[in-house]
């Protein structure tokens, strides 16, 4: 475990060093991209100045809201759909083709309907994530061993208690896969929408800096987005590892 971690760190450090060298030698000119060391310094300065606190908060709050909605609605919907075989059959083709539709295309329509506030962005991010949660949760619910359901019946549990205490915990590794998608889609949905049309958020700031050739702002913010998603994913991986280890699946 430890050596692999070191190796990964080395690969990343090597890559950054390589880009740094390219920038310094002049193969990548500074108008295209400043060297990583300068981006880091710019980022540190920008964060210290506090001028991006507002946009960062806006993006993270909206992403968190969309994520929570996608997970709660997705899991609830999956439990209901799982119980109703007919609904399941009619929805399956819809789920199968869902991600062929670029949800972001609905963004202008949502702005017309809800105005240029948080709502359209949250709806986009929610729509992106919710179906991944539903599909993965359904997949997990399908795999709950029958004997666990029989045990629940022996304990005379109702359907709600069975869902919350038996089937969902049993399906947890699959639900978690859906949750990981929901996190990624929440960030993509919010930042993507901010990019297209918005009045605040990290995505808006990146687009604004881009339009003004402000590399000293644009690159640090891009790096910030990367750092945020890496941190979130690492936290989820730790949780997943615990969960799988406990079940002897890893």
């Amino acid at each position, binding site marked *: 475990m430890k050596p692999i971690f070191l190796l990964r760190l080395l690969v990343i450090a090597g890559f950054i060093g390589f880009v740094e060298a390219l920038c310094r030698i002049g193969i990548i000119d500074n108008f295209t991209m400043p060297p990583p060391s300068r981006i880091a310094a710019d980022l540190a300065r920008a964060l210290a100045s506090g001028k991006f606190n507002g946009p960062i908060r806006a993006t993270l709050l909206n992403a968190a809201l969309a994520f929570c909605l996608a997970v709660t609605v997705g899991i609830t919907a999956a439990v209901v759909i799982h119980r109703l075989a007919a609904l399941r059959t009619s929805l399956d083709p819809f789920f199968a083709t869902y991600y062929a539709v670029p949800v972001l295309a609905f963004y202008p329509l949502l702005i017309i309907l809800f105005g240029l506030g948080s709502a359209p962005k949250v709806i986009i991010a929610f729509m992106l994530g919710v179906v991944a949660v539903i599909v993965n949760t359904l997949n997990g619910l399908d795999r709950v061993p029958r*004997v666990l359901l029989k045990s629940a*019946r*022996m*304990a005379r*549990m109702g359907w709600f*208690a069975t869902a919350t205490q038996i089937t969902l915990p049993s399906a947890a590794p699959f639900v978690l896969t859906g949750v990981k998608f929901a996190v990624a889609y929440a960030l993509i949905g919010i930042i993507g929408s901010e990019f297209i049309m918005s009045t605040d958020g990290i995505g808006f700031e990146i687009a604004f800096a881009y339009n003004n050739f402000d590399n000293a702002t644009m690159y640090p913010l891009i790096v910030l987005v990367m750092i945020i998603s890496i941190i979130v994913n690492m936290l989820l991986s730790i949780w997943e590892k615990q969960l799988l280890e406990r079940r002897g699946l890893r």
Partner: protein
Amino acid sequence: MPHDTNKVHVSLRHVTKTFRRAGGGQDVHALGPIDLDLKRGEFFAVVGPSGCGKSTLLEVLAGLTPVTDGTVVFEDQPIHGNVPDGVGVVFQEDACFPWMTVSDNIAFGLRQAGIPAAETARRVAAALELMGLGQFARSHPAQLSGGMRQRVCIARTLVLQPRLILLDEPFGALDQQTRLLMGEEVLRLWRETGATIFLITHALDEAAMLADRIGVMSARPGRLLEIVETGWAPDRDSTIVETPEFGQVTARLWQWLRVESMKSVGRMDRR
């Protein structure tokens, strides 16, 4: 002697089970017709060829599967696919909840039944001790061997103190020595609790050693071909296997089963 073995505890009359295949497939006639009375406090074992409907019979008794025809009466109340109070099952498959610790698994039924926490803790501790799982109270099932997981499932059922205990090949995952010891343990529990035990097993010697009566089932659809009475004293233990009577009981069981098992294997070949 705690056993009043004359009163009928469970009675099956003309019980039949046919699984309907959805989508126009062949129906499976799994069981019956079966007529059987389990007496209160008796130890009844069932042997039969693979796939003959033993587990189906157990699920009918547990109220997990409604019968297609016939009646099941438990403590004077009809059962028809509803789980009655006072019945405990240990399933053939591993039924441990992998996300719960061993302790929480054992406490599960007690908590669902709303037993006070102190009483739950007391019974769980006793069960851990009894099953030799004390050191593993805080482990998760994935960290245990198959036999230990089965012991968790047995403990989970016993702590509920059921009056009718249904065991579906509970020692299937255990080695021969542990099997014998667990068998003695079950005998002791049976004597102490006075519960009625219905045990499915594929080991003829196990049935012969543990049970008062042994039902021999036919190949599918499972019917009762014969009920063999062992006539053992209630305070028996595994030393009974040394007696000539034990040999006679197993020999009788094998006589009946040899033909039936060949039938069931022959049917598998033709499929």
